[in-house]
């Protein structure tokens, strides 16, 4: 493996990690514009992170080492995830470390640590958040796996690199099963990243929180890492969606000629996706917590339906 590959890997990781707050800022800015407000500016998340890093960490008296470890594990998990997903280029050195199943497992690890940290302090809010988060996860994770299996069946592989190459570098084909998978993926994205209609990321009412309730006790640098990890997770999910459903423009690792085009196309896609997400949030209302299993059940069944459609329409084309 030539050094160019490692440089691509490092470039992708650093770019994704440091641009993730900008992505979040863009989504919030779009939401503000859609609500006819002027918004806090694109760089607001960076200012928030800076403020949090400078503060003293205030920790409950009975917090254990798990509480202090969890933000680092969650952040590392997300950074690792974004290094594996082909954002800028395929065939990166880190990509054989995980295929789609391992990626889902990585998200699960980060989530379990967050849930355990939420339960660590022993308040009602933390355990409620942990319980709700694990409920959403236990339905969203199978749906996500099924969504990933449709492109895996099409490209006969579960390695993201191979999937992107199969879908992106072949001639243009419309796969109806991918249509099902796309709808299901969108629903899972909303659930896993705590967006409306599953969870309101801007809520201040503890009883309506899912994700926020788990990190309620965190402050300063721990909260900064958690928020940053949340932004990176959103970026990773959107990148996975782009890699699976609109993969044109992702370069080969080490292919420096394609790289500027790749970065440009990526920025355009991310901007469109962010605006789309903001628009979707504007037209939906947050669901009751017990409607969420139905929502995720629908996503799950749509994904399974996508796999079945693949067998009917795409395996033996007439």
């Amino acid at each position: 493996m030539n050094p160019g590959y490692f440089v691509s890997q490092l470039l992708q990781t650093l770019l994704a990690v440091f641009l993730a707050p900008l992505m979040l800022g863009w989504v919030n800015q779009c939401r503000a514009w859609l609500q006819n407000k002027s918004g806090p500016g694109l760089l607001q998340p960076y200012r928030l992170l800076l403020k949090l890093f400078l503060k003293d960490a205030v920790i409950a008296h009975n917090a254990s080492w798990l509480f202090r470890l969890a933000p680092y594990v969650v952040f590392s998990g997300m950074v690792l995830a974004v290094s594996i997903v082909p954002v800028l280029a395929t065939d990166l050195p880190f990509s054989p470390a995980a295929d789609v199943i391992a990626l889902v497992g990585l998200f699960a690890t980060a989530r379990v640590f967050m849930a355990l940290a939420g339960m660590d302090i022993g308040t009602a809010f933390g355990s409620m958040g942990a319980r709700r988060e694990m409920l959403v996860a236990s339905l969203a994770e199978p749906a996500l796996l099924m969504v990933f299996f449709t492109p895996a069946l099409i490209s006969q592989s579960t390695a993201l690199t191979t999937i992107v190459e199969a879908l992106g570098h072949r001639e243009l084909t419309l796969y109806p099963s991918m249509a099902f998978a796309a709808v299901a993926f969108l629903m899972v994205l909303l659930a896993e990243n705590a967006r409306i209609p599953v969870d309101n990321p801007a809520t201040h009412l503890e009883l309506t929180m899912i994700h926020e309730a788990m990190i309620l006790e965190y402050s300063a640098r721990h909260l900064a890492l958690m928020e940053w990890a949340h932004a990176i997770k959103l970026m990773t999910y959107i990148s996975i969606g782009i890699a699976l459903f609109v993969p044109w423009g992702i370069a080969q690792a080490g292919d420096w000629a394609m790289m500027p085009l790749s970065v440009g196309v990526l920025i355009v896609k991310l901007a469109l996706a962010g605006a789309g997400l903001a628009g979707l949030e504007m037209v939906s209302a947050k669901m009751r917590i017990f409607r969420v299993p139905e929502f995720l059940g629908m996503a799950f069944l749509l994904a399974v339906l996508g796999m079945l459609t693949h067998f009917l329409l795409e395996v033996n084309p007439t």
Partner: protein
Amino acid sequence: MSLSFTNQLIDLMAALLLLIAFAMLSQRRILRLIHLFAAQGLVLAVNTFIVAYAIARPELYISALITLVLKVIVLPWLLHRLIDRLNVRWDVETLINIPTTLLVGIVVVIIAFNLALPISHLAGTITRSTLGIAMASVLLSFLMMITRRKAVPQVIGFLAMENGLFFAATSATYGMPMVVELGIGLDVLVATFIFGIFFFQIRETFDSLDIHHLEKLKDK
């Protein structure tokens, strides 16, 4: 082996049809059911249009136009008026809960797909792979009729079933003779009117549109 572009479009329309059938199965609100029904009609019309273009049969263009007028404009408007006058905008209740309905739906789809495979080998049209999806939509609409408590969603299920049959006809035999098609269209229109009258009668008698009240008519 890649398919021609029109084949891919037809497959895509079929997939959208199945998606809408599933979405109707899981919908709670009657207004959204009507919108989904209109969307289904639109997908049907577009599909008929594409098939007409691909095999160059002019009568299918007319068929597409009739579908568009009837199923996307007239019927949804009639249904809209109906629910306005009946004042039935509330949530739909189901006999079994929605996740279980969806699970049964998946099993139904698997059965339909497997039943359609040998038949589609016999058919000679370009759209034969979509026969399975057509059968699945028919069965799913039937399932919708079975699992609803109120009368209006059952009617929409009936109309959606007719949509599925129309799609099956398009995919297996390139549409039906024009006479048959006009006849079916007229039947559907008349049926909707009669359903409307019936619903008013039911509501007069029982003060509610819950179907299980009809059981009271049984001789004891």
